[in-house]
């Protein structure tokens, strides 16, 4: 009795492995996700940015109530005169940083959500609190469904979603393209509207890409010849142009592989149509019932024998 069931056990294990292998093979071949260039995004040109931080203050002014943003005080600033965030945080959705290599070579960089075409945060959120709008491509967060598990933070390759660690009622904070604030009122994001030098361009992804290509062609040697976000992790709606290498500006070096596609393929292969779990349950039930029956008949035999012998403890 022991032997067939062990074989069955290994069969199940083997099946899991085979399913995984199959999933891996298919991951690169078919079902590649489609980039939608009609969605909206922003193009940040680091060479045009003067670091005035008007975008940062506009973002906080526009989104502070809806997005739960607040001013961050510097240690020396006892009176709270300036907003001085060190990094993106539970109070700050967008941030300008300065990278300085030498007196002559430096660049500003703006951080905020990249609004991926296939966002990892949306893929991993267990309760659909992170969503991607099919038409606008905006990755949005709903605090009324969020359970605060922070899986989106684990998943995001850009470390964008931020959590409010110091609040008893915390939430995730990230850019939502002013979806419920400035975009509704004025048809443009707060930061792009406020930028005095045109470093932030707002528009459809296809227009942004065309403009970026144009700038690269018209100014040979000015930029690093790469549009950051065009292909990274399957494409993002927030695009970058820069004269400095992007990794020096704190943007991670990423391939065109889409992490969410990789994980979803494996998860879907195992759970396709919920067939594997049901089959597993069925098989196990069959084996267990068969085993139990064998023992019941044995038990009955034993108990009658016991009764005959007048033994004081049952089987």
């Amino acid at each position, binding site marked *: 009795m*022991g032997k067939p*069931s062990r074989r*069955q*056990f290994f069969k*199940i*294990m083997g099946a*899991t*492995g085979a399913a*995984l292998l199959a999933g891996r093979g298919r991951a690169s071949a078919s079902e590649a996700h489609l980039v939608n260039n009609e969605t909206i995004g922003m193009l940040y040109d680091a060479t045009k940015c003067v670091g005035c931080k008007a975008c940062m203050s506009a973002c906080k002014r526009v989104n502070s109530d809806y997005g739960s943003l607040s001013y961050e005080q510097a240690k020396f600033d006892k009176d709270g005169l300036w907003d001085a965030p060190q990094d993106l*945080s539970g109070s700050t959705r967008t941030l300008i940083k300065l990278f300085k290599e030498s007196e002559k070579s430096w660049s500003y960089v703006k951080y905020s959500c990249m609004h991926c075409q296939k966002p*990892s945060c949306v*893929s*991993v*959120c*267990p*309760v*659909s609190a992170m969503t991607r709008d099919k038409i606008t491509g905006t990755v949005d967060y709903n*605090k*009324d*469904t*969020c*359970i*605060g*598990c*922070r*899986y989106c933070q*684990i*998943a995001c*390759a850009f*470390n964008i979603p*931020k*959590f*409010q*660690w*110091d*609040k*008893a009622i*915390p*939430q995730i904070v990230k850019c939502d393209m002013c979806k419920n604030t400035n975009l509704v009122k004025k048809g443009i994001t707060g930061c792009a509207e406020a930028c005095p030098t045109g470093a932030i361009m707002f528009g459809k992804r296809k227009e942004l890409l065309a403009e970026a290509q144009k700038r690269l062609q018209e100014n040979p040697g000015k930029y690093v010849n790469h549009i950051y976000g065009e292909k990274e992790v399957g494409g993002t709606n927030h695009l970058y142009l820069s004269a400095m290498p992007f990794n020096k500006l704190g943007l*991670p070096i*990423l391939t065109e592989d889409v*992490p969410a596609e*990789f*994980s979803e393929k*494996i*998860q879907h292969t*195992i*759970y396709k149509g919920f067939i594997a779990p049901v089959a*597993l*349950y069925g098989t*196990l*039930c069959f084996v*267990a019932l068969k*085993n*139990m029956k064998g*023992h019941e008949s044995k*038990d009955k035999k034993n108990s009658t024998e016991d009764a005959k012998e007048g033994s004081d*403890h*049952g*089987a």
Partner: protein
Amino acid sequence: MGHDEFQKHEAKILTPSFIVLLTLTVIGFALIAVRFIWGLGAVTNMSDGYPWGIWITYDVAVGTAIACGGYGMAILIYIRNKMHYHPMIRSAILTSMFGYGLAGFSVMVDVGRPWNSYNFFIPSKWQANSAMFEVALCVMAYTTVLLLEFLPAVLITLEKTEWKTLQRFMDMLHKRTGINRPERMDERLESVKELAAWLKPRLDKVLIFVIVLGITLPTMHQSSLGSLLLIASTKLHPLWHTGFLPLLFLINCMFIGYSIAILESVISSYAFKRPFETKELSGIANIIPWLTVIWLTVVIGDLTWRGQLGTALSFDFYSRFFLLDFGLVAGGSLLLFSGRKRESVRWLFVSAAMIVLGGALYRFNVYLIGFNPGKGWHYFPALAELLITVGIVAFEILGYQVLVKILPVLPKLHTRQQLDAKKHDDPVTV
């Protein structure tokens, strides 16, 4: 497989270890109160770079693997048909119940907005792409299954109870404060007993379907615990980031489960001064090397295929942790291949401890040590964060200690001797 295989452990409940564990539990729960008043930042070192700390890594990822004793024993008994291990099942299920229950509790402490958890039960919010969704539902279902599996022990106690403690308490209350016992109390107590007696045979009939569900669910969510980190392809070190994470986690939980069943039996025999269950243990120990060999083969094969063998042997920070987890599991299994060492309680204990440590370190490597969100981020748990974990573990041991003394959980001693005698005619073949 009657209920008479089990017995209460007759001993005092208020022991010195009870007081120590209770103190640790109280400290832990006080700090949990701090977390809910002042936020997660007040008690933890977690950050936006390391959003999952020791609670998810230890309490959930390692804790549920350690709680896989019940899963492993259920496979052994009901699927591989080794009924003579049945006397060990209840203590295994009890520890699993505590392990999973408290993992679930830790998650509720860890998540920022627990009041929104009801969304797991709203189909329109379901997100089948998320491994977390699968883990959450499965863990909730499995905790319920474990409660059902343990219910017979409670019902049989209820059925036979004479409510002595309650009667004495009511008498004392009456003497001290003059409160009369409620009218018809005896009647009501009698109806509870009747209900238990009514429910038990009915539960016994369907229990096998619940038990099999209790095998299916861990198979699903233990693999999904590995799937959780599949998405972090840019953050998890290539030594551990592989499409085989679900399979590796599944096998890992099985050998941890069997090893912990050995450790638990040795420790509780020692602590409760009962004879060691060497025969059963060496039988279980026989299975472990098979699982670890599969696991080690998949690990090496996968590293070779992805061309990461050199990284594994480079002796840098990550490689050392990899070699340590790999070495502990391999070393422990090597010991278990020797038949003579399997007969010795000491060697059984040593090898099982090595395998549990190695297996747990593997999970730490995947969730924390091999996880690198980028420059400038560091994580080491805060004292308060550790104390909360300690408090939760203390509560787990405390609950186990108390329940084995009030419910029939441990194998009945004379049954065991009978079994030993029986097994001499019918040697274990694995």
